[in-house]
């Protein structure tokens, strides 16, 4: 038997924080590829500490639904899962965006744990960002004449969070699909507040590289960009700001295509996903 565990941050304050984790887990459950699929959280239950014991499978694939490699994915999660002999070098990610997976034992269960790199630094995350731009504009060909801003938190505790943003920015820029692609941040230069200064295109799609919608994506960023005076009154999509049209998408992590990233992480770590048709778990699943 094989299990997939999606580990997310969760929240003591915000009931919506765990929803993306639940909805991607449900998408993967529907594929029937795993005997068990379970969610686990840092701030909710089951905790990282206790999730493994709730599973019957001997082979467990753990994929962090986190944006970057760093404090949570390299220290907190492996420690709380009790992964024996974990060392970040096992991921062979010298640059903070190339984590793959490591196979370990957990000290409280008799199981093999395949600990995967976070969803956020997987190559296919670039596709999710583009899909987000398509869904917010309602145009599956969006790109020509459009700028794309990918927004991150900034340095804070973890310098790798900026690396993940830069990584996908570079990849999407190289694809040539959008006229301009920029990485912007909430608390460091270049700042999202000045979004219109960085683009010459009239239309700018703004995609925050966050897992769940919450305070930052629903309140700070819309207000900082001038989409609205007061987040409680909402904002238009697109919204006019300084002669530009801003298409603000909300957190990328709620995009249903995220389920594919999680599945790819597990498949690369050796999970048997043969039951999957076309490798596209989220096909036909509506965005929400």
């Amino acid at each position: 038997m094989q299990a997939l565990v999606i580990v997310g941050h969760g929240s003591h304050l915000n009931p919506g924080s765990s929803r993306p984790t639940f909805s991607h887990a449900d998408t993967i459950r529907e594929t029937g590829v795993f005997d068990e699929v379970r969610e686990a959280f840092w701030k909710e239950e089951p905790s990282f500490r206790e999730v493994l014991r709730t599973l019957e499978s001997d082979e467990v694939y753990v994929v962090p639904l986190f944006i970057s490699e760093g404090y949570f994915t390299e220290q907190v999660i492996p420690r709380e899962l009790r992964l024996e002999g974990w060392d970040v070098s096992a991921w062979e990610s010298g640059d903070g965006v190339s984590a793959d997976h490591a196979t370990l034992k957990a000290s409280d269960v008799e199981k093999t744990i395949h600990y995967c790199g976070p969803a956020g630094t997987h190559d296919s995350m670039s596709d999710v960002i583009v899909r987000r731009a398509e869904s917010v504009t309602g145009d599956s060909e969006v790109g020509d004449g459009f700028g794309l801003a990918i927004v991150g938190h900034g340095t804070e505790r973890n310098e790798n969070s900026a690396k993940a943003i830069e990584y996908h920015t570079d990849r999407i820029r190289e694809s040539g699909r959008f006229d301009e692609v920029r990485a912007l941040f909430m608390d460091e230069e270049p700042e999202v507040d000045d979004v219109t200064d960085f683009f010459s295109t009239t239309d700018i799609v703004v995609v925050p590289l966050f897992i769940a919608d919450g305070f930052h994506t629903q309140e700070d960023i819309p207000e900082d960009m001038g989409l609205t005076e007061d987040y409680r009154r909402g904002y238009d999509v697109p919204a006019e700001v300084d002669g530009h049209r801003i298409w603000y998408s909300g957190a990328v992590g709620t995009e249903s295509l995220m389920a594919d990233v999680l599945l790819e992480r597990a498949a690369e770590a050796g999970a048997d996903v043969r039951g999957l048709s076309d490798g596209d778990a989220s096909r036909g699943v509506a965005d929400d």
Partner: protein
Amino acid sequence: MNAPQLDALVASASQGVEFDGLSVAADSEEYRVEIPGERLETDEAGLRAFAEENPWYVSNWYYWTRTVGSEGARYAFLRWIEDAGRPVGERYEALSTGVSRTWGQLRVSATIGEDGKRRYALGHVDDAESASLDTYSDPLAARELVKLDDRGRYRPLSTAPTLPTGWEYPNLDGEDLVRTVDFIYPATVENWHREREGELDVTHFREAAERQSGIYEIVSQLSVEELEAAAETCCVDSQCLKRRQWDEDEETDLDVPRGDGEFPCREPCSLFVTAARKFVTLGREEMRSYEFELTPTEKEQIEEIIDAVAEGRTDEIREADLNEGANRYRARYLRARRMPDGELSGTSTYPED
């Protein structure tokens, strides 16, 4: 009992069957079958006839060993629900009208279905007599169902005694029952099972604190007195239905009652650690003396207000009940009289500034 169950029993006889008082053995064409008070040596036809007369023993054996699979936490939990230490006949009698157990604020009921298959119902203990409940069948729905309490507030701690009412799962099989319980009270069945097996891995506070990093590193600074107060704040039955099995460390028990819950708490949870971090920062402040002018009733009123908030009773205090210190009009009047500029008795918090 149905024909496949009986065939399975006959086929299993050569390896020997010993289950809940039913014993079957075979030696070439000779069968020996036994239930409490009856014993028979016979051929296959005789075994089949005996089984037909005692169908409960067969369907019971089949349900537990084939449908459920006789080991692990799920098995133990489902057996506990029907109090499976009892003789099969007595159990089937009880199951025919239904048996119930309480698990936190959940009420789990079992009845006997077709061919000995158990059917389970799950709901809130307070809804046992309720007629108009929303019915569910998908275990996954439980995650959203219990996210908010009956007042619409988010429940960050799954085992807080604020489980919402008004819903039921009227008909689950054993596997879905345990999955649903696991979504409502995650990992409780597994930890309860480990405890019964004498294998619960308790992590005491000092060890859990040692492990913390980042902003939670400071929780190890909590003194034992603060730890007692923190456990009394978060872990007693009125706040959390888990039974606290962790203490300060292996040698040092806390005086706070552990609680009477069915399932154990094996280490300080994330909510406790977050609260503990706040308590450490509160504990860093120096005491100082203030002088307040209050009437004796006003002093008592402040105590009543703290009590009402701490017990979550403010909602119960009636609008016009002016005899209650924590009544809103009384609190507003106290503020109007004794908190000019928002400070109690006009006394500055930091007089030196």
